[in-house]
C-alpha cells in the first residue's frame, strides 16, 4: 500500500511556510510535489518532505513554534518527532555523538545534553496519561546556528505545577516557580526540579534559553542568573524551549 500523500496545506503547516512559498519551491525545483497534470492539485510524499528537511537549511524554531501553537493538532515532520521517550533518548544520544565527533569548541557537551534531556524528559514525565492531543516532542537541532528546539503540546507548566502548588494563579508565576523554587514532596513522586538545573547551567555557561509556556515567556542569557519573565499576547497549552549554545 502506498503511504498517504499530504496536501499543499498540510505540507505548508508541517514546514511552517506559506502556500506561496511551496508554489515557489515547486517552480524552482527545491521541493517538487506530485501532480497528475500541470494544473491539478499539488500533493507531497512524506519521504520527499523528510529528504528536503535533511538537505536544506530550515527555520527549526518557526517549525517547532508553529506546531506547538497550532489550533489544529497534527504530527510534526517524522525526522523531528519523538512520539515516545525511547525515541527521544535515542535522538539525544545521536546529538551527543555528533557533537563529540565535531569536537565543537566552547560547548560543554555533557551540560548541553543534560539540559536538553531534562527539558525533554520533563515533558514526558509531566504529561504521561494526560496529553491533550498529540503525545510526544518536537525535537530539532541546527548545529550551524548552534540551536536546539524542544516543543510539546502537553498541559504546560501552570497546569502541572498548580496540582502541587494550588496558590499559583497564572503562567508567569508558574514558570518563575518552576525555574527558581525547589519544590519537595511532590505527590505522587519526587520530581520537578529539572528546570532549576537548567537555570543553574545557563547561569554559569555561554548558553541562552528562551522558554515559552501558556502566555509566559522566559529568557535567560548565559553567564547570568537573571531571568526575564513576561506575558505574551498569544497563548498555547504546551511548552517550547530554544537553547542557543
Amino acid at each position, binding site marked *: 500500500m502506498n503511504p498517504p500523500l499530504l496536501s499543499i496545506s498540510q505540507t505548508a503547516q508541517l514546514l511552517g511556510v506559506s502556500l506561496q512559498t511551496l508554489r515557489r519551491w515547486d517552480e524552482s525545483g527545491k521541493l517538487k510535489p506530485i501532480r497528475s497534470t500541470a494544473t491539478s492539485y499539488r500533493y507531497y510524499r512524506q519521504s520527499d518532505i523528510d529528504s528536503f528537511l535533511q538537505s536544506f537549511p530550515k527555520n527549526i524554531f518557526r517549525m517547532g513554534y508553529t506546531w506547538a501553537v497550532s489550533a489544529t493538532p497534527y504530527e510534526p515532520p517524522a525526522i523531528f518527532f519523538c512520539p515516545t521517550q525511547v525515541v527521544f*533518548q535515542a535522538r*539525544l544520544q545521536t546529538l551527543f555523538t555528533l557533537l563529540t565527533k565535531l569536537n565543537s569548541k566552547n560547548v560543554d557537551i*555533557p*551540560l548541553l545534553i*543534560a539540559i536538553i*534531556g*531534562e527539558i525533554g524528559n520533563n515533558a514526558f*514525565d509531566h504529561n504521561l496519561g494526560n496529553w491533550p492531543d498529540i503525545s510526544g516532542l518536537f525535537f530539532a537541532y541546527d548545529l550551524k546556528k548552534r540551536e536546539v528546539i524542544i516543543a510539546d503540546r502537553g498541559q504546560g507548566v501552570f497546569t502541572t505545577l498548580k496540582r502541587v502548588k494550588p496558590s499559583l494563579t497564572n503562567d508567569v508565576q508558574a514558570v518563575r516557580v518552576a525555574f527558581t523554587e525547589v519544590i519537595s514532596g511532590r505527590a505522587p513522586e519526587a520530581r520537578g526540579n529539572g528546570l532549576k538545573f537548567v537555570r*543553574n*547551567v545557563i547561569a554559569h555557561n555561554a548558553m541562552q534559553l528562551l522558554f515559552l509556556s501558556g502566555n509566559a515567556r522566559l529568557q535567560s542569557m548565559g553567564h547570568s542568573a537573571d531571568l526575564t519573565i513576561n506575558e505574551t499576547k498569544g497563548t498555547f497549552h504546551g511548552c517550547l524551549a530554544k537553547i542557543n549554545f
Partner: protein
Amino acid sequence: MRIFLKKFGNILTSRQAGKEALAAFEPNLRALTADESIEIDFDGVGSLTPSWADEFLIPIFQRYPERVKFLPTDNSSVKETFALLEDIHKIRLS
C-alpha cells in the same frame, strides 16, 4: 563493590531510565556484605542529569550513607547534578 555507571548507558538522563537501572541492580545490592563499601565510578559517562541520579544514586546513598563513595570525575554534568541534589535533599554527596 564498584558500580560502573557507564554500564547503564552513555547518557543517563531520564527518571524512568534511572528507576529501571535501580530495579535491575537491586540483586547486586542485596548481595552486599555487612561492611562492604560502594564506589560509584563515573568513568565513561557522557552526561548525567539530576532526574536520573535522583532515581538511582540518591536511593543508594540514602540507604548506605556511610558506605557510598563517589569517585572523582571531571564531568561537568556530574558536578552540576550533585550541586542541585545536595541543595534539594540537604545532603553532602562529595
